[in-house]
């Protein structure tokens, strides 16, 4: 797929507007009928640090970055050396840099890429009101072959509400960029032609989570800001009230999750969004939700950890706490979307499952998905709704935690006369009355486990593609690069199976074993230092004897090329 796409990055100091520029370019490309993805890479500081908007445009849907860049545009070189190991350049790459910003860093100079000078800062000085990032958008847009008029329209659309003066200045900047591009030599790699007009969406993973929640019927959110999850809260703050729901900015994460439990106890489907440190604080209440059988969804947009880690970059190392965090045996649902579009459906499904099973659900997204923005094929229509089993039998015989073969006890809600009970984190009997008896404890533990075991989760526990006796097993955002690696190998005639697990807990071990039955060679791919996913799988099933793990901590992307190479060496290893 590599040759059908164009990869670009814009870098500059935080505040230089590279994110806005990248987003504008993506929007313009989408308006021209392309698909594309933009991921963000920034330092932890808000301004003054390094920032990169990394884009990939294609005529076919793409959701992972390529292994290398065709174009790098530097508004300035501030701390750019930090990108040395992730923005990969070669002799076919082209660099646009402002000679007024000094020399390019060593990694750029030694890459063999051709550097082309464009005096961005001088242009800004000579044309009052323009900004370097808008000129950069014009330049890149024209150079790679987007339609100038559509790019202008896109910018007009974005700035419309900000007044005519701003729009005029931006259009002037774009045109400066267009004319600069006309002076540049042609790119070695051309932009693929736009595909047939199909319905597409422009959406970020965080917005997609918010939309999924709304579609499934969530009407309450309490949250405390934390990077990189805040956009979920911001999006819901606008859209929940518009459909009759409420968002509360809580004083901390302890309050956030407990407020959600309060709302859900009252019958209103609830969600909170956070990232690692906030999720750690929520773990006690997760146990409460499990014990008291109150549904709710926690979205953890993972970042580098432990502790405050790397707030602005991606990792998949919260798997352990998501599955096992909380004392005691506290089963919960753990789900992971494996693309930006899938953030919609997986969140929807999480809400549905949480409500159906009266169990907390954790959705593990990450910075790459959450803050990634893409032009994607429009996701399928809503399929999963919040549907809670309510009691029809309030009165003398109502027992809130009555046992049944599927373990699901019909629930009563405040306002239902005769259904009064006290939900509690204490071990209890079927009535809800606290009990320290071992057999009561065990009966309820059995019931809660059975709820999850007896439920038919269907086929969407994983995405399984391809066949053959070599397989890649992954979850979450690393799936995107793995999928492309498999596609590339398939194009070369090699058949590789991809298994991406969406329902991480409870894991459908029978189905996974079946999916791996014909597999002789297995590569596990995950973005964690300790190989958390691999260890988790090993604790539940026997993996093929020939299993290798490609595990790396964040934030460095595991690219499709690297995965393809790992699969190939896996095959060679066995042959040797």
């Amino acid at each position, binding site marked *: 797929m590599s040759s059908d796409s164009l990869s670009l990055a814009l870098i500059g100091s935080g505040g230089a507007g590279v994110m806005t520029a990248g987003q504008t370019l993506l929007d313009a490309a989408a308006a021209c009928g392309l698909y594309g993805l933009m991921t963000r890479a920034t330092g932890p500081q808000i301004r003054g640090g390094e920032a990169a908007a990394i884009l990939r445009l294609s005529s076919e849907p793409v959701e992972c970055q390529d292994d290398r860049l065709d174009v790098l545009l530097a508004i300035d070189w501030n701390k750019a050396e930090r990108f040395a190991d992730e923005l990969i350049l070669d002799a076919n790459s082209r660099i646009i840099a402002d000679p007024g910003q000094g020399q390019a860093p060593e990694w750029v100079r030694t890459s063999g890429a051709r550097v082309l000078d464009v005096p961005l800062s001088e242009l800004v000085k000579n044309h009052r009101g323009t900004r370097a990032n808008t000129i950069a958008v014009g330049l890149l847009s024209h150079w790679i072959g987007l339609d100038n008029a559509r790019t202008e329209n896109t910018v007009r659309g974005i700035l419309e509400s900000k007044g005519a003066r701003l729009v005029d200045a931006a259009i002037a900047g774009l045109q400066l960029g267009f004319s600069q591009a006309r002076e540049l030599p042609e790119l070695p790699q051309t932009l693929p032609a736009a595909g047939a*007009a199909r319905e597409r969406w422009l959406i970020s993973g965080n917005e997609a989570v918010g939309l999924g929640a709304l579609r499934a019927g969530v009407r309450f959110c309490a949250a405390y800001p934390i990077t990189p999850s805040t956009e979920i809260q911001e999006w819901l703050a606008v859209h929940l009230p518009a459909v009759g729901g409420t*968002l509360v900015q809580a004083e901390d994460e302890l309050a956030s999750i*407990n*407020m959600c439990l309060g709302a859900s106890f009252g019958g209103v489907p609830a969600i909170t969004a956070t990232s690692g440190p906030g999720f750690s604080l929520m773990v006690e209440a997760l146990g409460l939700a499990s014990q008291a059988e109150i549904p709710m969804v926690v979205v953890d947009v993972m970042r580098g950890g432990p502790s405050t880690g790397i707030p602005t970059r991606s990792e998949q190392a919260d798997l352990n706490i998501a599955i096992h965090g909380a004392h005691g045996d506290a089963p919960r649902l753990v789900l992971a979307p494996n693309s930006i579009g899938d953030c919609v459906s997986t969140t929807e499904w999480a809400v549905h499952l949480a409500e159906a099973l009266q169990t907390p659900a954790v959705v593990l997204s990450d910075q790459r998905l959450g803050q990634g923005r893409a032009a994607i094929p429009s996701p399928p229509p809503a399929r999963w709704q919040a549907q809670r089993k309510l009691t029809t039998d309030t009165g003398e015989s109502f027992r809130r935690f009555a046992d049944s073969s599927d373990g699901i006890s019909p629930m009563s809600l405040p306002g239902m006369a005769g259904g*009064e009970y006290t939900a509690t984190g204490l071990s209890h009997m079927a009535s809800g009355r606290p009990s320290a008896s071992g057999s009561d404890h065990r009966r309820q533990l059995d019931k809660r486990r059975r709820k999850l075991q007896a439920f038919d989760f269907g086929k969407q526990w994983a995405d399984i593609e391809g066949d053959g006796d070599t397989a890649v097993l992954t979850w979450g955002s690393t799936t995107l690069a793995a999928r492309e690696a498999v596609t590339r190998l398939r194009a070369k005639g090699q058949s590789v199976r991809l298994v991406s697990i969406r329902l991480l807990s409870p894991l459908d071990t029978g189905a996974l074993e079946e999916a791996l039955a014909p597999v002789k060679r297995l590569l596990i791919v995950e973005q964690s230092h300790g190989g958390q996913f691999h260890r988790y799988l090993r604790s539940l099933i026997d993996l093929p004897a020939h299993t290798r793990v490609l595990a790396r901590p964040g934030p460095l992307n595991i690219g499709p090329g690297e995965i393809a190479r790992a699969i190939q060496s896996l095959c060679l290893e066995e042959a040797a």
Partner: protein
Amino acid sequence: MSSAVEKQISILGHKDFKSDYKPVWCAGCGDFGVLNALTKAMAALELQPENVAMIAGIGCSSRIPAYTSVYGFHGVHGRALPLAAGLAISRPDLTVIATGGDGDGFSIGGNHFLHACRRNVDMTYLVMDNTVYGMTKGQASPTTECDWTGSKLSPQGTGQPPLQPLEIALAAGAPYIARAFSNSPNDLARTMAEALSFRGFSFVQILSPCITFRPDQLGWKKRVHAGFEATDNRAAAFAALADDDGFTTGTLYRAPRPCHASARAEETTVQAIQDQFGVKT
């Protein structure tokens, strides 16, 4: 509260608000008085049990929801207020009562207390203050006197001034603040009924002796005295607290202000929201 309420208290069966659970409290615990007064207040206000929810954290006092026949949620230590707020905000049709102890409310849950006062959600917070951690067998709480040496955890006393819940509530913006005594059933029921009827966040500190770990609190009977005159003047309320010995009862402050309200927005459909993501070419 008028004498009409007092009459109703005697007429309506407050037992309907009690559950058949036998409290685990020590005989003589002040919390029995709180339970009795609360069921009386609910009966007097003619609330329907199914429309009331009692939310608590952890502690002896936090067990109270299960002893009533209304909906209850006995959560984790210190988190009664956010639980209650989530419920009250999303179900404004209910009467929501958060309850618990001084350790639960002012120590582990201290931050939530400040923000509940500020946020002003329409609910009532009843704190059974016995100046000790009863459930964990008698450690000092934030309201314990600095020279109390009865705890093995602070054998020399805490050396810290006790926290002043009413001053904090006032400073943090609570619109309704009162103090009552568990051993004065009618006054307590009256205060509770007033707090429950108040629109906004109402906070009642209830002096409720722990006879097991603070038997000296049996002497509170002699020290408690009426005295607060309800005012809507913050300066006057602060002045009253400056003269307070910790045992003055009554409504200290009552100054309604707008409640936390759900944000309003122009109504739309999920479909219309979703359509915004479509690429415009």
